[in-house]
């Protein structure tokens, strides 16, 4: 009987003192053929090889700029004058002492809350509606994505005009209802609402489709048994659908957190000056970063803001993750429980 993997050459035993059969078995165990070694290697290493292109690209395009920004932030670095001397954490100190940094932080959080919270809630509701037996379902599902297709800069320019303080369409509607015109570009909260509405308009459909995809993976027999138990549609939605798509909801919340804290195009193009208003009412952190880098032309400070923003986003994303996990889990209705 040929041992598996043997090329056919006679096996020479190293010691020469064993019985022939035990000798053959020994040989197989002692010296796995190169093909077997290759198979073992294949099983272990190939997964890493398959994911490596992404990570290599990330190293070049993602990690390197992160590191380089940190390098720039510890130097005195002008936009046109280039690298200056090493200053340690001086740039960070100057940023944290600048009142415009805290102003931008407040604005960013305000716009973030005003945009992300309605976005996720409306996306959930929309997805729930799209999941029902509508007519022309595909048409509805595709048109919900249409706002996403328009370039953000174009949206910002048009909404900036629509929300014009004196001659904008929004104020005409407001006055037609009978209220006083709102100063969209002057009042802080009004400007945040206008900018948040731009962001919501763009991203709600996109998030709705992601949630819809998750909802369609929920097994239908769970709904049937709930209906038999007397649960209405809303109750089914709240108690079955939402907990079962919890991982996707968490994903949506985290991506909108990351995006919401980096909003740039919409507030930047909301007016023609690009500084966030005369009192910086709607200047977000990324706009503040841009102003430091390209108007004040201090790249060192701009890089410090970039790293602070990175840390803020990480902290916030973790907080969001923690809160979402807790909020999403209802007692006795974990995923395993529902499947039973």
């Amino acid at each position, binding site marked *: 009987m040929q041992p598996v993997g043997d090329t056919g050459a006679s096996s020479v035993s190293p010691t020469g003192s064993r019985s022939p059969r035990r000798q053959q078995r020994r040989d197989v165990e002692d010296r796995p053929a190169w093909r077997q070694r290759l198979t073992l290697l294949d099983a272990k290493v190939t997964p890493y090889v398959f994911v490596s292109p992404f990570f290599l690209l990330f190293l070049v395009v993602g990690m390197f700029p992160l590191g380089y920004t940190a390098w720039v932030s510890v130097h005195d670095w002008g*936009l*046109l004058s280039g690298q200056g001397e090493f200053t340690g954490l001086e740039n960070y100190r100057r940023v944290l002492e600048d*009142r415009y940094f805290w102003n931008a932080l407040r604005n960013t959080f305000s716009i973030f809350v005003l945009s992300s919270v309605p976005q996720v809630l409306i996306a959930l509701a929309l997805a729930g509606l799209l999941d029902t037996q509508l007519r022309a379902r595909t048409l509805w599902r595709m048109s919900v994505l249409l706002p996403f297709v328009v370039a953000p800069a174009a949206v910002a320019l048009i909404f900036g005009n629509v929300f*014009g303080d*004196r*001659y904008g369409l929004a104020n005409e509607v407001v006055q037609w209802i009978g209220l006083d015109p709102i100063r969209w570009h002057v009042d802080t909260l009004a400007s945040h609402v206008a900018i948040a509405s731009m962001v919501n308009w763009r991203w709600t459909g996109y998030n709705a489709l992601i949630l819809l995809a998750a909802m369609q993976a929920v097994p239908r027999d769970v709904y049937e048994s709930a209906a038999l138990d007397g649960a209405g549609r809303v109750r089914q939605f709240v108690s079955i659908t939402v907990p079962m798509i919890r991982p996707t909801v968490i994903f949506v919340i985290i991506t909108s957190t990351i995006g919401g804290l980096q909003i740039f195009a919409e507030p930047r193009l909301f007016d023609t000056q690009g500084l966030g208003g*005369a*009192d910086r009412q709607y200047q977000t952190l990324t706009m503040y970063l841009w102003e430091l880098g*390209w108007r004040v032309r201090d790249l060192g400070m701009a890089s410090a803001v970039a790293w602070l923003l990175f840390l803020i986003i990480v902290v916030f994303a973790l907080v969001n993750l923690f809160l979402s996990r807790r909020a999403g889990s209802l007692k006795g209705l974990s995923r395993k429980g529902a499947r039973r």
Partner: protein
Amino acid sequence: MQTPKTRRVRLATSAMLALTLATTAAACGGGDDEGTTADGKVKLTVATFNEFGYEELIEEYNAMQDDVVVEQKKAGTANEHQDNLYTKLAAGSGLSDIEAVEVDWWSALMEQSDAFVDLSDPEVESRWLDWKTEAATTPDGALIGYGTDIGPEGICYRADLFEKAGLPTDREEVAELFGDWDSYFEAGREFVEKVPGTAWYDSSGGTAQAMINQVEYSFEDEDNTVIAADNAEVKEVFDTITANAGDGLSTGLTQWSEDWTASFQDDGFATMACPGWMLGVIEGNAAGVEGWDIANVFPGGGGNWGGSYLTVPAQGEHTEEAKELAAWLTAPEQQIKAFEAKGTFPSQVDALDDPALTGSTNAFFNDAPTGEILAARAEAVPFIAHKGPKFADINTAFQQAIQRVDEGQESADEAWDSFLADVERLG
């Protein structure tokens, strides 16, 4: 198990995918052929902002020779153009072959003079007014910009609104009303009482800018030390303008904003400080509105607002051809044509005496002899305000402070304190 049909489908799909990927990759990796057109001619881009009046000139240049094709890239506002310029300067590539630069941020760019080609040429020596050429010459003697226009200011006004308020409408009579800023603002207070709903001037920022341009050393000293905080003249301008905030003299809008552009069509205001290049802007924004005119007067005597240069960035591919084009565009004859198109008043010495300039009229402004008026205003300019490298940034902070008072976000004193904090922050 793969049936023959499944295998065929899979093969077809992978072939399609490969083809799509290859095509996309080819499209993405397109070579840089921006400097030449399809038939091998040199392609030059001229980047300007607002209205330089170059549209017909560029067509003329393209028609009159065969080696070069010229295109214009127009930015909507000077701010956008400036941002683009700085970004691409820092990046080291991406600038047009000719870049226009406004005098407000000219000083800051002079510090990077090696990014621009030395345009000195015996042919264009003494083509421009002395102070124009001097400002564009580096300490080493290199000339890095060819002057285009200057900005002598008159007062543009709406004759039809003046009539409603019982003010004189004839150009010459109006010229007697505004000898200084006090009489200008007084006339304004009378006006807003008689014509409610319409403001006197287009923006506090624009009027403040006109006033600052009459201060020789406003934000910076001769050696470019920042004196904005202690300068009594700057504080006076600030106090005068913010005192008007409650009177309804100002529209309360930011200059160049969307609402400001719309206010031209809506009887938003009756007068504005009018340098030559503003004529083209007004004509564009107020298309269809009748009654605009320009008076040969400026409060305080005279003032200069703006004026630009054409520069050739050193990073360009065709700097020789660009230099020739810039020299042609800034020749006296061409600048007069630009003036006739968009009102950009020539800075070239020969153009100022040219009968084509002094005899020209502007139909939109009630056939006013704009050439003559602006030439007279240019002579009334006592000096050119000094603008150092930090001028543009401090001016932005100044304008924002004034705007905050207009919008009611801060009182005049608070806004002044914030302005001082901003000046300190800029270093």
